[in-house]
């Protein structure tokens, strides 16, 4: 049931306290937090730096504006309503499609316009924001997600978390939503985390609720064959977020769009530690290596460095059907 601190140290596991003091406290300037804590700001900044993000449908900034929600949503099939300053996936409402005036969640639950308006109103009054300060509701288009990955997820869109340290992608995992996580891709809500090899973008191992898994709990599809297309582009996109925000220890959440390829969904200045579980490896050694690297290296060189040094072999048993997902082109 318990392990010893010594064993964790040998594995290079980083604890909450160390993350907070040694990495977030040291490399993330508090002045820069608003850039990532406000998803609207992140989005606008990303557009400036040429980093692709999901299309913005609109924003609601006043309680009065809630009444215009119906008009704003008109004609859109699927969309996501999220608080600009939310944290930990709180307050994110995913509507997969609209059916006879009812808004259908990925789980199949149907909501009325009233429910949506209440949700937006709650967002505006700061229910989901850090510190309860008044907030803005951001509505963006639902991603047309890459069907090659559909076997690995249940409802919602799987996203890829890459930890970027001083601009180097150090560790990555894919988060697959499950029935337990209500279509959301947050590990503590029950999503499956799959550690990804930085060199190739293939699965290393999977965990759900901090316990090892070899298949998806809902679709039953084994995880060994998971391979992310456009992997290098995705890493470049993630690495570029360092120049964009200036934050040294950053969690980037990416999604794969069928047509547009990798996209930046949101950034996190306090990324969680579950990625170590998904990779079966601590962050410590990789972060130590990066700390010894000089400043001012271009993103391409940083990605190449990471791909060279952080290569791993899969721990999952590869079954008969190898690599159902292939690189396009």
């Amino acid at each position, binding site marked *: 049931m318990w392990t010893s601190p010594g064993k964790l140290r040998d594995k290079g*596991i980083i*604890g909450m306290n160390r993350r907070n003091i040694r990495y977030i406290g040291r490399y993330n300037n508090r002045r820069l937090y608003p850039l990532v804590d406000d998803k609207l700001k992140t989005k606008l900044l990303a557009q400036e730096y040429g980093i692709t993000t999901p299309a913005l449908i609109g924003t609601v900034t006043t*309680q009065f504006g809630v009444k215009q929600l119906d008009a704003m949503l008109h004609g859109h099939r699927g969309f996501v309503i999220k608080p600009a300053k939310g944290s930990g996936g709180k307050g994110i409402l995913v509507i997969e499609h609209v059916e006879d005036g009812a808004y259908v969640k990925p789980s199949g639950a149907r909501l009325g316009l009233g429910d949506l308006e209440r949700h937006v109103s709650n967002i505006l009054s700061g229910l989901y924001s850090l510190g309860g300060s008044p907030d803005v509701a951001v509505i963006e288009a639902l991603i047309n997600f890459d069907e090659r990955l559909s076997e690995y997820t249940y409802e919602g869109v799987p996203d890829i978390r890459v930890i970027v340290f001083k601009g180097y992608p150090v560790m990555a995992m894919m988060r697959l939503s499950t029935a337990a996580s209500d279509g959301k891709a947050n590990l503590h809500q029950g999503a499956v985390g799959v550690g990804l090899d930085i060199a190739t973008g293939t699965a290393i191992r999977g965990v759900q609720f901090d316990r090892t898994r070899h298949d998806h709990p809902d679709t039953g599809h084994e995880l060994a064959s998971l391979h992310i297309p456009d992997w290098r582009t995705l890493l470049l996109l993630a690495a570029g977020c360092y120049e964009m925000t200036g934050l040294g220890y950053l969690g980037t959440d990416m999604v794969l769009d069928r047509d547009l390829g990798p996209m930046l969904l949101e950034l996190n200045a306090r990324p969680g530690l579950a990625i170590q579980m998904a990779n079966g490896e601590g962050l410590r050694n990789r972060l130590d290596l990066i700390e010894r690297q000089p400043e001012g290296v271009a993103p391409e060189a940083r990605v190449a460095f990471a791909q060279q040094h952080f290569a791993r072999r899969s721990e999952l048993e590869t079954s008969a059907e190898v690599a159902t997902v292939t690189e396009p082109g």
Partner: protein
Amino acid sequence: MSRLPFYLLVGLLLVAGIGLSVHRHVALEVPWTPGEQRQVWEVEALVNFNAQGGPVLVDMALPSNQQGFRLLTEHTASPGFGLSFLEEGGARRAQWSIREATGSQQLYYTTQLLVAPDSRPPEVTPPPLRRDIVWERPHDTAAAQVIERAWSRSADSFTFARELIRDFGDERQGENSRLLLTQFERGPLLVRLLNQAGVPAREVSGLLLEDGRRRQTLANWVQVFDGERWALFDPATGEQGRPDNLLLWESSGQAVLEVQGGTNSRVTFSMLTHNQPAAAAVRNQLAEDTLLNFSIHSLPLEEQALFQTILLIPIGALVVVILRVLVGIKTSGTFMPVLIALAFIQTTLITGLVGFLLIVAVGLVIRNYLSYLNLLLVARVTAVIITVIAIISLFSVLSYRFGLNAGLTITFFPMIILSWTIERMSILWEEEGPKQVLIQGGGSLLTAVIAYLAMNNPWVRHITFNFLGVQMILMALILLLGNYTGYRLLELRRFKPVTED
């Protein structure tokens, strides 16, 4: 990036905190534990005199802090008289004055004295040597011979004084001594002779403390100086040393009582002793107005009671810091458990737990209904606040009707904090399900109970209230904890699967 200034600060806080606490323990006799008993003497001086119809001025010596005793409180009862306390050269005196008084008058002075065997004696300056001593014939030769005789048999001031007093004792009384005693009183005579021989000395007045004695008078002692040191001598026997139960009432060689405008004046003493808890004895201590003795005890009683609670909050906060940083327990609202623990102190633990669970449970049900009304957040939380107040009122009335007086203490809960707790738990329930509510609610409650146990501990209460230096130590501890980069206890379980391959 150097951490040196940080550790210097922590070290400074620790040294200052421990130093202040030890100073209070050593210098002011504040005990480390609340249970210790201390002996306290209550001494009452009664001044009697007949006023002659004109203005009256009564001037009486008062005791001060001295070896073995520390002054706690003093009171006077003197209807119609003006009163002022004077202090000059280390001697304290009380002056009563009245414009017109006739007949028998009584003035009372009561003081409480803490028996403090370890207290250091205050600095005593030797009186100046009197050079103006003249004797009439034939006393001059008698005095010279007595001094000569004692001098030859002594080695220093103290032995000289002892030999001199013995020569006036009954057994060895010679002709010279008898001659001198016909003219002078024993005490002043001894001081005269000692001064003439170049030994500074004076007559002081002391009270021998014996439990339950009434109508006692002061006894005279001869205080003899030898450089820095001094010693007391019994003028009758020549015995050297100060009895443990001797309270020096007047020790600067002045008169104990001076009355102008009155006759037949005398002062008598009654005394009582009792034991009381050390903490109470400390509380009665007269606040000395120095920065080092800075203490909450100099505030009025009501504010003291308030501070007793306020000074406990850092303890509760320390518990929260430990549980979050070292253990990794999740709570709903960082310091909410401390406020709940403060409420538990008022309600007692079981009543508090039942009350808390009742309020939160009923609040959650009502909040669930409110969520259907589609209200703005602030309005909704306000509605929850009113609901919480209604629940508290209802429970108070119900428990009172059923004869459960403990239920009335439910009003001590911080209502706004409870409302926010309900709101947060409700959101948590909607978003992450009842399991998270149980984890965070349970974590908060566990933290609150541990914080309560820590804050309600009699020893902790005693220490935080009596030693302000402890706050600095707590500050240093919290700074150190804020620097801890190791694993949390619960992480040892969380990350266990990683270490299993």
